[in-house]
């Protein structure tokens, strides 16, 4: 298969050519050497330095336990964003089978949209071997699509782990909570999960049990001192309620956010994570452990793209390895 040209795709994204999205995803998911080189070209051409600032999209992470109503939530949010004239890309992450490596996609979360609407892009991605986490190409895809789309949604399943990884790439993280299901509440209180930016109580039409969940979450947040986290109740049973409020909460979080700092943090986290995947513990040790790596990253140009940061880490690690840190026995 001939590899698409990374620079050319970048130019299309910068021109907000949304039809480039499938080819971009195919490229960043392909792990051959040639494809990775082209993906690096793509990201270099879309780096903050090249763009003259951060990509404009609002990158929103949506996560929550199975059955929490994420299909409904995303379908309604999609409709709301579209009615404001915003283009939306959704990256839905599905777990892979550890036995076969295969996965079933598109079934768990089904998002209603008009197939003729060219301003909506929905792609499911298999998580691969990453438990509860993001597909390897998700961060890259989100960064690239954020140049062309107004909103980029990253959807994952799970609670306790997934929102942590999503938080490393999204500007705003929303966690969906089903009324009466105690897991999110327990995990919040126990500190197993990080406090999200927005909590969404789904199925508000259930009435009292939903109100109770809403109140419990507020109490827990206030005990944790996290008063800035919005808690919004929504229902998709006609007429849908709560989505204007939810949209406002997401917008408000994005408005208050130091976007530059958050995106920079995300790029550094991704560079470190990719480096660790590629070079393992030994590579990290060569950088003086995670802290050493962080220090190095902090010293680099904040406008660099992820592959550039990764290359810098590799250069340093190789320099260190040229002088063996342990006597050879």
């Amino acid at each position, binding site marked *: 298969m001939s590899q698409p040209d990374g620079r050319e795709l970048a130019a299309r994204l910068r021109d907000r050519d949304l039809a480039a999205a499938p080819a971009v995803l195919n490229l960043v998911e392909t792990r051959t050497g040639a494809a990775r080189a082209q993906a690096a070209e793509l990201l270099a051409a879309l780096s903050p330095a090249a763009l003259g600032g951060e990509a404009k999209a609002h990158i929103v992470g949506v996560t929550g336990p199975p059955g929490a109503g994420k299909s409904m939530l995303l379908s309604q949010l999609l409709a709301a964003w579209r009615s404001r004239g915003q283009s939306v890309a959704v990256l839905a992450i599905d777990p892979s089978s550890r036995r076969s490596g295969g996965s079933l996609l598109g*079934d768990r979360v089904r998002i209603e949209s008009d*197939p003729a609407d060219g301003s909506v892009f929905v*792609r499911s991605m298999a998580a691969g071997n990453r438990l509860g986490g993001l597909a390897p190409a998700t961060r890259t895809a989100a960064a690239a699509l954020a140049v062309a789309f107004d909103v980029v949604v990253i959807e994952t399943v799970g609670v306790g782990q997934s929102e942590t990884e999503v938080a490393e790439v999204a500007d705003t993280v929303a966690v969906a909570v089903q009324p009466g299901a105690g897991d999110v509440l327990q995990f919040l209180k126990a500190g197993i999960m990080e406090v999200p930016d927005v909590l969404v109580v789904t199925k508000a039409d259930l009435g009292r049990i939903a109100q109770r969940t809403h109140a419990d979450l507020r109490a827990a947040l206030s005990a944790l001192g996290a008063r800035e986290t919005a808690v919004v109740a929504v229902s998709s049973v006609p007429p849908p309620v709560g989505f204007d409020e939810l949209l406002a909460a997401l917008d408000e979080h994005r408005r208050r956010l130091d976007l530059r700092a958050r995106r920079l943090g995300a790029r550094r986290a991704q560079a470190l994570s990719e480096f660790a995947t590629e070079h393992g513990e030994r590579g990290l040790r060569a950088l003086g452990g995670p802290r050493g790596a962080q220090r190095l990253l902090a010293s680099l140009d904040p406008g660099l793209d992820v592959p550039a940061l990764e290359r810098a880490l590799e250069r340093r690690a190789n320099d260190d390895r040229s002088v063996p840190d342990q006597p050879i026995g």
Partner: protein
Amino acid sequence: MTSPRLPEPDRPWLMRTYAGHSDAKRSNELYRRNLAKGQTGLSVAFDLPTQTGYDPDHELARGEVGKVGVSIAHRGDMATLLDGIPLEQMNTSMTINATAAWLLSLYIVAAEEQSPPTPESALQGTTQNDILKEYLSRGTYAFPPGPSLRLVADTIAYTVTRIPRWNPINICSYHLQEAGATPVQEIAFALANAIAVLDAVRDRVEPSLMGEVFGRISFFVNAGVRFVEEHAKLRAMAALWDELGRDRYGVADPAQRRFRYGVQVNSLGLTEAQPENNVYRICLEALGVTLGRDARARALQLPAWNEALGLPRPWDQQWSLRLQQILAYETDLLEYPDIFEGSKVMEALVAELAAGARAELERIAERGGAVEAVDYMKAALVESQRARWRRIESGEQTVVGMNRFQESEPSPLTAGADGGILVVDPSVERERCDAIEAWRAGRDQQAVAAWRASRDQAAVADALEQLGRVARDPGQSIMPASIAAARAGATTGEWAQALRDSFGEYRGPTGIGETAAPAGQDLAELRDEVERVSEALGRRLKLLVGKPGLDGHSNGAEQVAVRARDAGMDVVYEGIRLTPRQIATSAAHEGVHVVGLSILSGSHGELIPAVLEALREAGAGEVPVVVGGIIPEADAAALRDAGVAAVYTPKDWDLNRMIGDIVALVAERNSVPA
């Protein structure tokens, strides 16, 4: 010594043959001919758009209008269908589920508008009206489970008080077995379904009417070739039904607690290989539901021996009817009381199945009942079907002529020019059919548009608004508002849309997400190949499994999706009822390497080319497409000419081989060396 015989032999069960017809006017002519011969019952099959609540001009109706039954879009169509037929004397059976409340409303309005008019209280007939099995296997649902069940309860409550001779519901376990249900699952899921319905009705009628309601509920079951166990299954169902009526609903009259059921025997086990053997299978299955008097079917319908090959000819259907007649009139079957009474084996089998069903019913109850457990039941069926298929593939379960004793002399039954099935001349006749089809679809579309233009728009708008208000208030019955909308001239699509607006859109569970991934020794080779090709491609081989159109028979698509996942592919499957454009958009967005389409409704000639066209428009024209379904060879050739890479039919039962083919196809198209 007392005689082992009955004083008088029993009367035979009702013998039915299945016959479909397509268009309102022609159906009406057929009904009137049969009426002249003394027939007193009508059986109405509706097309898929009518069954799922779409007008003939809706995008999803494309290729389906008038296909598997008659298209009824408004009271005018219903009046044409019933023209000249005195409804007071008629017993009308309607195979209709999601939109049953609407078709019943149209029937009531047609009766009151006839001359002379028939009051609703005098109407007799049946609406199938079993929505839960639509989520589990048949696929013609329209609304979410909760509101759908409420519609079922509304029609039952309405008919019990207003149309006392109407059978408002026929609970179908037939489709569950076709979807893979074990005997225990068939019993338990059907009864759980009945409980959900009865509980919902209990909130809507006077307590004194519950016995009447209970007595009105009938079943439509399946019977497979393990006929001893199948007979025990029916006895177990009868016992559990009696117990349920007495204990849960306090029905005192034993007559109201009798388990009433009709049967269509199994099509799932009929083979394309050595199809003559199917005659024996059908005979044994018929025995299973007639042998014991205490659990004998009220009505029986047999498939034809060549169903897996294509459309049966009239002679094939006659052959199946003769089987029933020999059983009833030549054998001594009907001369005895129950021949299993006192049989220890039968008793123990019944006890075992009943215990299994009770445990399963408990699991469903723990989930909050059948409505809440739809996902659970669907996943369980997919799992059972998969287990069954693997047993056949591994040879653990014998299917004579298919996976064992395959050697065969040439069969004279299929040696004729027609290959032993009803053959439509591939060129001339096909074109004619297509032309008629196109004309009919166009005419229906124009007719519905003309209808909409001709009526009192304000009255229709008011009626639909009122319908929406009633729908949003679960305390009210949908029936009076539906009847008012029917009178005002609303269409099937408008009625359903008003309810979709009130209840929300719904996509049923596919059941595949929960299936376990097996260790699968037999898959090792296939997995290695998927891994190798994926490695060469640079990313994991990705397949989209799509079901275009309104056909809800999803077993095949689900099994292929699960097996492909188990072989290591990334599989995109979004369920049934997708437009060609939705499938094409998904294929393009998802960046799949290959698309697999499944169609069993006979609409492949129209829908597959539409998907190919949509793929080209979506910029994914180079993605190879394979097709599976009941597709005659002449049609398969036409599809290949149109650009389809491969066509699979029931004879391709070895799923691993099919998946292997698909991997090879992707490798070839992407220049991956073998």
